[in-house]
């Protein structure tokens, strides 16, 4: 970080730096304020209680599953949106990105009417003996719903930025579409894919509204860390603050790991900043 700061970055007006500092403190100050409220004497017992560990473990598992689902579904979506043209594409893109602006509770209600017991698809699932509501699957679906646009958005942008020149060359040399995708397109946009996946994971980890509305809240099954924090706040604010801190630390670690992974591959965020 320090080596990069010395790079010749002249010409930033002083007022820009001033506003940037105000912006940074706006984000950092509330976190500091929260840390000042942590009851350190009780911290370890609070975060190692059975319900806390269950919630953390469930959050990590479901967020990872949701991220995998986002990659599996989101990469083809981004490629189709970036590389093809068809009637109604703009409308489709706006619809796909809708969960970004939709209040998560609305997403939860929509999922309920789709996968719920009396929902559009849920009724058929029920006939096969598959129940989604109140299950861990419901949590993963809710998280995927809200996190998917992050992956599609960042990947589609990257696909448009790198352009189609290399892909065209590959194709003229006789590579099939799948080979071009695997050997040229995906390696080119790998940094964006990683950062998109990290964003999706972070969004899934913080997901609250859709889970609460759609999946319910039961220890070890559907009560993720944000739901546990919300519930603990009712009776034990100390536990809520301690768990909030855990969530913040997990989020910071995830972002740091992704950052490292990106830089080691030589295609990380740092490289992109220089270009």
């Amino acid at each position, binding site marked *: 970080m320090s080596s990069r700061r010395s790079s010749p970055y002249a010409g930033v007006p002083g007022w820009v730096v001033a506003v940037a500092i105000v912006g940074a403190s706006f984000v950092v100050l509330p976190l500091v304020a929260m840390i000042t409220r942590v009851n350190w004497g009780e911290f370890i017992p609070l975060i190692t209680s059975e319900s806390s560990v269950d919630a953390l473990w469930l959050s990590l598992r479901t967020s990872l599953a949701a991220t995998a689902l986002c990659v599996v579904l989101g990469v083809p979506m981004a490629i189709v949106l970036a590389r093809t043209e068809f009637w109604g594409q703009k409308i489709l893109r706006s619809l796909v990105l809708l969960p970004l602006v939709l209040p998560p509770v609305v997403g939860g209600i929509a999922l309920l009417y789709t996968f719920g017991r009396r929902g559009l698809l849920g009724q058929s699932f029920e006939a096969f003996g598959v129940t989604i509501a109140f299950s861990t699957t419901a949590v993963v679906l809710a998280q995927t719903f809200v996190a998917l646009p992050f992956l599609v958005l960042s990947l589609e942008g990257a696909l448009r930025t790198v352009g189609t020149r290399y892909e065209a060359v590959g194709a003229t040399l006789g590579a099939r579409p799948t080979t071009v995708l695997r050997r040229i397109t995906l390696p080119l946009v790998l940094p964006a894919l990683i950062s998109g996946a990290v964003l999706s994971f972070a969004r899934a980890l913080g997901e609250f509204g859709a889970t609460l509305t759609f999946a319910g809240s039961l220890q070890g099954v559907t009560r993720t860390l944000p739901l546990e924090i919300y519930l603990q706040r*009712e009776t034990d604010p100390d536990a809520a603050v301690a768990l909030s801190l855990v969530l913040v630390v997990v989020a910071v670690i995830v972002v740091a790991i992704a950052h490292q992974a990106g830089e080691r591959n030589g295609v990380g965020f740092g490289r992109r900043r220089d270009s």
Partner: protein
Amino acid sequence: MRRRTTIATAAMAAAMTLALAACASGGASSDAPATTAAPSPSAAALEGSITVYAAASLTSTFTELATRFEAAHPGVTVELNFAGSSDLVTQITEGAPADVFASADEKNMAKLTDVGLIDAAVPVDFATNVLQIAVPPTNPAGVASFADLAEPDTKVVICAAQVPCGAATVKVEEATGVTLSPVSEESSVTDVLGKVASGEADAGLVYVTDVAAAGDTVRGIAFDESGEAVNVYPIAPVTATKNPDAAQAFIDFVTGGVGQGVLAAAGFGTP
């Protein structure tokens, strides 16, 4: 470049407007009661504004009572803030400008009397509430009694033990010896009702007033054992109130004939 400047200016302007608005409203609320309190000590000429913090389950009744109170005392404006009782306690503890606090249980009222934000001697019980079974209108699982909720195929949603309706559920379970295995423990009555109304759950346990307020979306099934967990609603003026006369008048209104009538019509019991 010019565009960026415009955005920055707009952002700064917005921030300053907010700051000014905060100053203005703060000034108004602290001035108004001061000027009214001095010249008119008689209760007949109440003036100013009071803010009532009331439990979420009181939303419809207190909205009606506030309108009626304002009609009876044209000089007084009643501002209402509804949320879960523990949320309201947190807000008042953090300095929110409440004049009256109406809690859904004695435990949350005690949190404020313990720290001296409310005088321990003043809270008055003004209503009671008991649990009722809520089922979808068609009652798909054929629930008829509290014991039916323990049937393995019946999907039951209850409140988590941390919130008042969940604490009441635990009490009833202990008193009846029936152990429920719910599919979900929600953090609010609304979430329980939502799952029952949508048909996701076969039954839920909420307060009788919640079932009444939900209208046709759910059906209520009363059960005898509900008497094991009677929730008592206390109300009190916040010690720091700037308008104690109006605050007390509102409390008297709630505990008086009109207030008790409105509360009884919504399904509340008398303490």
